[in-house]
Each structure stands twice: as C-alpha cells, then as structure tokens.
C-alpha cells in the first residue's frame, strides 16, 4: 500500500518485485505504466511539465488506493507519479495491484489509473513549437472513470 509523488524516475522491475517480496499468497500482479508521447493531436511535443498540488496529491492518491482496497481483495497496491519536466519516452506514472487471482489484479489496476486521471490534482503543460500549451481534460477520461462509479465487484471474490 504505497503512494509516492516524486521528480525522479523509477525502476519498474524493482518496484514490482518489492511489492510482492516474500508474500506467496499473491498469484497475480498487474501493472500499468504511463509514458510521455512525442505528439499531441497535430503538434510535436518537445517535453511536458507536470504540476501538482503538494499535500492534496498524496491525499487524493491515498483515497483512490483505499477505494481499490475496499472493492477488491488485494495484497498490495502501488501508485508512483512523477512531476516536473519530462521528455518523450519518459515514464510518468506506475500503478500496480497484486491479488491472489488475476481478475482482481487486472480490475484494480485499471480502476487505479482511471480514477487517478480524473481525481488526482496533476496538470500537464506541453512544450510545443508554438509555446506552452495546457492539456485539456478529456471527456473520454471521465467516461472511463464513470465505468467504476457503481460498486462493481470482482468476479474473483
């Protein structure tokens, strides 16, 4: 049950290994890694800068994690989100969920990233050839998050 907000990169393999180290009740570990792309619509992106709300960010991520733990039988969860200037190809976010069975791990991982995208106070500023451009929130992210609005329970329970 870990939430980290940091400027530096993270080692996905090491982070996932640490999550389940010594816990042999875990049968499935599902992870999602978000990366910086080099395009946004028609524009090329040189880099992006992620701003966040220190204090509320950690609180919001912990609440999202707690919600996942309430909905699925999970042995471990992990959310790491970076801030600051990131270039194309760099890792932005890692979310992961470990459970006895794959269904809960898959669903919880999907839930974590969908809710994070619409609830955690981060903002992306893209550096384009025309200057800095704040990224607009996308309706598709709201729709993705809304899928989890009901108390959807895992088939694995």
């Amino acid at each position, binding site marked *: 049950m870990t939430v980290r907000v940091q400027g530096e990169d993270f080692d996905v393999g090491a982070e996932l290994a640490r999550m389940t180290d010594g816990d042999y009740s875990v049968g499935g570990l599902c992870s999602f890694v978000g990366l910086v792309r080099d395009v946004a619509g028609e524009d090329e992106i040189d880099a992006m800068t992620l701003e966040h709300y220190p204090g509320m960010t950690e609180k919001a991520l912990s609440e999202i994690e707690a919600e996942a733990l309430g909905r699925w039988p999970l042995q471990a969860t992990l959310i790491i989100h970076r801030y600051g200037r990131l270039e194309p190809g760099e890792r932005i976010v890692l979310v992961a969920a470990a459970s006895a069975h794959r269904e809960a791990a898959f669903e919880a991982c999907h839930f974590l990233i969908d809710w994070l*995208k619409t609830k955690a106070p981060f903002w992306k500023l893209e550096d384009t050839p025309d200057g800095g451009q704040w990224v607009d929130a996308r309706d598709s992210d709201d729709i993705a998050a809304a899928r989890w609005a009901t108390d959807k329970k895992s088939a694995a329970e």
Partner: protein
Amino acid sequence: MKLLYFAWVREKTGIGEEDVGLPDGVDTVGELVHWLRERGGGFEAAFADDAVVRVAVNQEYATLTAAVAEGDEVAFFPPVTGG
C-alpha cells in the same frame, strides 16, 4: 485564509498563493469566487467561467455552495490531467 492557484489559473491570476482575511459577506466558495472576480484583471479572466475552475477546500474537492471560513486552505485549478 490561504488561497492557492494552479496551472493556467495560476498563470492568469499571476500568483501561486496568497494569504487573505475572510472577506466580509463571504461564507461560501461561490461568494469567494465572486469576490476574487471583482478584483478584475487576471482574476476576472481566471474566474470568467464558474463551470471550468475546480475548487478544493482543505485539500478536498468542493462545490460552489461549500462553506469557507477563516483558516481554510482554498485551492483553484483547472480540471486535472495527470496519469
């Protein structure tokens, strides 16, 4: 109370944070937004559309009808775009 501004709301107001006394007649987020808009300039631009700016009171999402009081931390920002 402490007021915080993030992303383009910060760019438009021109400041990231400030300490202000609870203004007379302000009991809700909506009344605080109205008071900020009356400052004109960048504040009027930042708060031109109530429907766009998101609010958190003491680091919890809040609506325009939520209460605000002396000592609160109130943050204003655009819809979030992390992940």
